[in-house]
């Protein structure tokens, strides 16, 4: 009997169970465990031992007691909603013009319209102050020529402008995609029935793209309420939840209160998700068929010129901060004087003297986290797509959770999870890699799942029946066929990790400062030149990673970001 059991065991392939089981354990340890700890700890007063009897709502009661907390909550909400509004006001018309009118330079508009997604928002944010702030360049000229100055943008207006300019591409790209794929016959038939152009847009075109707009609005809202860098730089006394969390962590090292604020932040995102699902579900009658028929294009000349001007304007202003960063990095003492007085490489000399380590750290952390995310994310998407089992949605949701959660919340979760208890990693590079890896794994998960579902299962079965074990089939057949998806996800993961701040700011330690931390420290101390030199290097690294991906994959950048 024992012999036959051994026999039985030999007949089952153990490798897939081992590999896939290990992957699931990683998921449990690095996502489920820390997130549960946040939830649990936020009901504990700091210093209390984790026990059921110590559970309390004290951390949350701050929101009813403290005006600071209440205003931060309100501010976050305001920022989120206004960013959605402005992103829509910029993104929807731009999508319409590029998809439906004869504006020139469409490819360039799409590429440049994607750029703000790749460039870290906080790097450019400070430029708004340099340009339009009270002491800003624009005000010099305005007061000189016309004798008036712009209203101060420091605080709420700056935060909202900077974020909207960074996040409008979500709305632009998703709406553009929907407009392209909407069946032109529907519009044509409406027109034949005698509807005017505006009426067609209002009654036919718009409802067709509403689900996409809702989806992009949700992403913008999630990003806006989760962003730490921009309000930290431009907010001043205008606090939002992420900045509040930051002060709890770095100021008081009160992780439990930070956890409670994080939960409130997450609740906001959760409500937004439910609302957007509601909008999308109600509009589910839309038929977006994959017709190859080209979208119908309006040949109206006025529309064409208005559209061109609009697109150029949006692109100019959205990239202005980053152009300012690059330009300023080559000047000395500018911003603060009317003209740049001197061009030099002094800033670069300084950062290469002092900032070699942060650059190396960033490269090391981003690469390591991307590799881990690539391996684990690929295996997880394999499990999700190929092993059809009940409760698969739980797996998908768990993997995607860190994508939905604000970066700073993930940071707090990892810090709470791994600064006490069984595994203690605080202050090491590992804790940063964990945070990075779980935040970026969704990108790889999505893009590999997409390429995996394109692969005919029969191709893998053909390998199996030809005598290959699971491992051989996976390595020789599945993996090479998934490679483009893995690579696309990895590049997006790497390039966005280079500019990652919200999670970093919670998890970094003196030994493991990253480029982004160095930049924000410079900016906090108003050392613009070196900050912008570093920013320029960051922008260049990110852009070359993306350019490399385009070369290797023959895909457009905007397509790679479709899944975001």
């Amino acid at each position, binding site marked *: 009997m024992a012999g036959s059991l051994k026999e039985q065991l030999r007949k089952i392939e153990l490798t897939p169970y081992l590999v896939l089981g290990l992957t699931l354990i990683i998921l449990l340890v690095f996502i489920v465990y820390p997130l549960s700890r946040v939830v649990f700890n936020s009901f504990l007063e700091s210093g209390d031992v984790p026990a059921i009897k110590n559970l309390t709502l004290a951390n949350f009661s701050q929101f009813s007691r403290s005006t600071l907390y209440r205003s931060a909550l309100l501010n976050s909400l305001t920022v989120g909603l206004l960013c959605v509004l402005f992103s829509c006001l910029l993104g929807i018309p731009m999508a319409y013009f590029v998809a439906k009118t004869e504006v020139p330079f469409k490819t360039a508009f799409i590429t440049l319209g994607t750029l703000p997604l790749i460039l870290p928002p906080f790097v450019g944010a400070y430029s708004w102050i340099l340009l339009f702030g009270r002491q800003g360049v624009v005000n010099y000229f305005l007061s000189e020529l016309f004798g008036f100055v712009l209203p101060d943008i420091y605080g709420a207006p700056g935060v909202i402008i900077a974020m909207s300019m960074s996040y409008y591409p979500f709305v632009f790209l998703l709406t553009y995609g929907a407009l392209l794929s909407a069946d032109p016959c529907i519009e044509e038939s409406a027109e034949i029935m005698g509807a005017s152009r505006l009426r067609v847009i209002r009654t036919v075109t718009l409802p067709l793209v509403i689900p996409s707009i809702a989806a992009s609005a949700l992403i913008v809202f999630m990003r806006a309420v989760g962003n730490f860098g921009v309000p930290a730089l431009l907010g001043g006394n205008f606090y939002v939840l992420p900045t509040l969390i930051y002060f709890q962590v770095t100021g008081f090292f009160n992780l439990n209160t930070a956890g409670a604020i994080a939960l409130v932040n997450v609740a906001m995102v959760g409500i937004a998700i439910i609302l957007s699902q509601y909008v999308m579900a109600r509009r589910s009658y839309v038929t977006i068929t994959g017709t190859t028929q080209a979208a119908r294009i309006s040949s109206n000349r006025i529309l064409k010129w208005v559209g061109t001007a609009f697109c150029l304007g949006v692109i100019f202003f959205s990239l202005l901060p980053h152009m300012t960063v690059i330009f300023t990095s080559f000047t000395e003492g500018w911003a603060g004087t009317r003209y740049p007085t001197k061009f030099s490489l002094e800033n670069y000399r300084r950062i290469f003297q002092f900032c070699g380590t942060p650059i190396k750290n960033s490269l090391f952390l981003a690469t390591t986290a991307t590799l881990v995310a690539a391996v684990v994310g690929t295996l997880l998407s394999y499990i999700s797509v190929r092993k059809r089992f009940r409760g698969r949605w739980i797996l998908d949701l768990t993997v995607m959770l860190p994508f939905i959660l604000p970066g700073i919340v993930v940071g707090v979760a990892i810090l709470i999870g791994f600064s006490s208890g069984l595994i203690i990693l605080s202050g090491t590079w590992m804790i940063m890699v964990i945070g990075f890896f779980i935040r970026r794994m969704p990108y790889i998960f999505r893009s590999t799942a997409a390429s995996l579902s394109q692969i005919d299962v029969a191709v893998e079965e053909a390998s199996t029946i*030809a005598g290959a074990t699971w491992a051989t089939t996976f390595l020789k057949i599945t993996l090479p*066929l998934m490679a483009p998806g893995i690579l696309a996800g990895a590049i997006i993961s790497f390039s966005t990790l280079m500019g990652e701040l919200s999670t970093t700011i919670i998890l970094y330690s003196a030994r493991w400062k990253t480029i982004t931390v160095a930049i924000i420290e410079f900016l906090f101390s108003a050392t613009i030149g070196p900050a912008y030199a570093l920013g320029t290097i960051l922008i260049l690294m990110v852009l070359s990673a993306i350019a490399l991906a385009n070369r290797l994959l023959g895909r457009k950048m905007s397509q790679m970001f479709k899944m975001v």
Partner: protein
Amino acid sequence: MAVPLKKSDNITLSIRNLSKIFKGRDEKVVALDEVSLDVREGELFTLLGPSGCGKTTTLRCIAGFEKPTSGKIHFLGRDYTAIPPFRRNIGMVFQSYALFPHLSIYENVAYGLKTRKLPHREIEEKVDSILRMVGLEATRHRKSSELSGGQQQRIALARALVYNPQLLLLDEPLSNLDAKLRVYMREEIRRIQKQARVTTIYVTHDQEEALSISDRIAVMHAGRASQVGTPDEIYEDPNSIRVAAFIGQANFLECRVIKQARESLVLTFPSAEKITLKGISNRLWDFPHPEGVLFVRPNHMEIFPRPGKANTLRGKVKFILYLGSVVRHFIEVFQGRAPQEVLVDTDRRIKGVYEGEEVALGFHADDIRLFPPDQKDQLQKE
């Protein structure tokens, strides 16, 4: 309980009471319902049946990609269900061919040899010889996407055969090809299969393909094997209305059966016509029901100009199709409420039989079968 096999049968694959139930979210699909089949060594055995009858599921259970809900599969006396698919030494050709898109033709074909860790030289020799056998030695360095459908099909066959599998499984291998190529390729497959002498299970829903290519056929319906037999057995001697109707053309006429002494049978039809059959076989004589459905193939019917001949049925020629080797007559008979159409195939035109004319129809006792009346409902289907 494995059924002991007689050596003389040369049975390699034996399937016993194979059932497969797919459990969906809220419903169960019985894909296979107690299927039992025996496949003999070296034969080309076809699973034939309409879409959804469970052919692919049977094949996937044999390959090991589906775990049977119950039942046994034995190969050369060994329990197959305990062996993982990659150790079963099976060659398989998929409906979509499933060539490895990132590998060259050579690498595709060599794949199964590499997993078997054969020496490099031997791999090269085997690949070359199998590519020669399928007539594609010139394409070895190309990618699979650069080949035509027919070529991909042959590469898939070569890839499945190159490592001398004990069993070859083909799932509708010709369904992606155009009609002309299909006829050519099925002859190719038959030739290559006989040359390789490999026991083969071939899945198709095309009855003509099945008849022409197979040594034996299992006709499947709704997860069951309705009949197993050689092509001529299936065609000439179907065991149910369903099989008779699924394979080729068939005429069905309801009738009453009256037995007479000395092995003769009188059939009376709703039109009150009467046909007496003499010298009938035991099987017809043993037909136990007082009424039944008469089955006769169109090429076994006789047609006479002018009605009224003894032992015939009256009909009216609606139209005649001249198909070259066959002349097909569409004849209206009045049996019961609505007029019914009967097909009669002859090998040449018959004098006096023209469109619009009345004719007499007859048949021989040897060529007819009677089916029990409870199979009548099978007539409506298909």
